[in-house]
């Protein structure tokens, strides 16, 4: 009888241990996922605008038109001023491919066509993420892009429809 009880105890105990192990596993996995998601979301590129820009969302077409330097004013009539990083910057390349859906070399050739035929202007080049944040925050009508981790409340994030 005692032996039976003992065996039962052991069974309950081992089940408990197993459950707990599963729980700990789940917990660790969740923590891992959370950290990972967090890192992943920090590595997301975002389109940022000056806080004076009234638009919160734009369509993909409008965004492409802005970065192609064809659309020149926001809906309220203020000048759009486009800021970009160097052509070979990783963030620039990701924004071109993922947000604008064009290859970076195509953006460059579009800008060159505008600049050297006089029918448009080039975007303003900045040399670092810090400069991007500072310029977009301080220039009326400015638009640019940054990693989520580098964005603070001095600029607005523009949503894409």
């Amino acid at each position, binding site marked *: 009888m005692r032996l039976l009880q003992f065996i039962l105890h052991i069974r309950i105990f081992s089940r408990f241990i197993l459950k707990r192990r599963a729980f700990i596993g789940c917990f660790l996995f969740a923590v891992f996922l959370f950290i990972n998601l967090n890192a992943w979301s920090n590595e997301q590129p975002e389109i940022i605008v000056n806080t004076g820009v009234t638009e919160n969302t734009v*369509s*993909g*077409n*409008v965004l*492409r*038109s802005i970065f192609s330097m*064809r*659309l*020149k*004013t926001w809906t309220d*009539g*203020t*000048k759009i*001023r486009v800021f970009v990083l*160097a*052509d*070979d910057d990783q963030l620039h390349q990701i924004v071109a491919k993922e947000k604008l*859906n*064009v*290859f970076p*070399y*195509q953006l460059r*050739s*579009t800008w*060159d*066509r505008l*600049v*050297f*035929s*006089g*029918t*448009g*202007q*080039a975007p*303003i080049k900045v*040399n670092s993420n810090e400069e991007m944040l500072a*310029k977009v925050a301080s*220039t009326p009508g400015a638009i640019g892009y940054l990693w989520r981790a580098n964005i603070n409340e001095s600029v607005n994030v523009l949503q894409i429809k």
Partner: protein
Amino acid sequence: MNQLTCSRLSSCLCENLSRKIRWLVIMMLAGSVSAQAQSETGTQQEFKPLQSLSNWFKTSELPAEATGVEDNKKKPGWVSSTINRFRNNELPGDLQIHGFVTQAYIATSDNDVFGNSDKGGSFGLTEAALNASARPLPKLQVSAQVLSRRAGEGNTGMPRLDYAFLDYQVYSHEADQFGIRVGRLKNPFGFYNDTRDVAFTRPGILLPQSIYFDRTRNLGLSGDSVQIYGEKAISSLGTFSAQFGVWWPIVSDKDTESSVVLTHLRQGSLNREASYIGRGIFETNDKRLRLGVSGIWLNTSYDPSFHSQDPIGSGSFLFTPIYFSAQYNAEKWSLTSEYAIRNISYNDKFGNKFLFNGRNFTGESYYFQGEYRFTPRWEGFVRYDAYFADRHDRDGSQFSAEFGAIPHTRFAKDITVGLRWNVTPEFMLRAEYHHVNGTGWLSRLDNPTAAGTTQHWDLFGILASYRF
């Protein structure tokens, strides 16, 4: 190399001095500004040997850029402060300054291209430009560019006003827009004409000559015009953009005159008449597929000279080419093709002394081009380019029988392979090789007698270009 540079410089000095000085001032300005721009963006990660090679190119091979670098060393404060002021976006009107300097070396087996290229090659092609644009009002842009091009007999390097115009965007809603441009404008035809002098934007040292003749470039390049333009998003497919203009071509240059009137007997001059130009381009949203149609209706008339007994009467000339363009862009490669059908008609007022009096020719041109981007820095391309002055007489035999001319002046078939190296985003080197059958697009000023030209010939070129 040094010897060639020296001989080039000394021959330059022999030319008209005042022209030369103006040209040099432009070059130095452009050069110094570009040198400054490079030092600003000199943070590129590069292999040391590449950097030293590019430095070597900049200082020893390119006289124009070398001058610029020296100039920059003398007055760094002035140049950098000027550039910093220009680069500062807080300037009223969003003023921007851009430009480029290009130097090419061209060697040919026979025939001359941009100078005396068949006797050991020449540094005969130099291009430099400086442009400024500003937006005094949100929808108003003002732009101007001065261009200097030294290329054979047709272009002396004398700076000319390439474009200068006002652009007002009348309407814009979402990605759709409509506007007007007034002033001297670049002629929009084909994929490349608007920026044909910018080495960074054209495919190769030489553009496909069948479509973009360098021979009549001054006529086709820009003109005083009024243009309307529009852009319309077509659902989720892409964008259609169009330009249409009335235009008064610039005809007062000897290259155009010799190409249009085709004779060294000419003593009079060409007149500008109202001409029309239009282009429509459809581009998918991802810019992978681009399709274009452009057309020109070019009117010119000839004024005989009053001082002498001009054998040629006051005839007029109509050039009506239509261009079809197509391009597919993938991440690593691009395929481009353009086709032109060119009608040229001379009316019968030139008189009997003029060979083409009352004649009408329909020419045909096309090219196929494949570009491959091995890495973002290294690109290669191959191209087949064909030109026929008369599509009904592709080998020139009828023309030869009728006018006693040499048949190979009536066509050219050019196979090209080339390589492009983007040393930095601002500095680029190119090399290319052409094998050409025919002399159809050779400059008549550089090759005055057709009898002195060779049907099968080769061309090798190297080019360095700097932009800012």
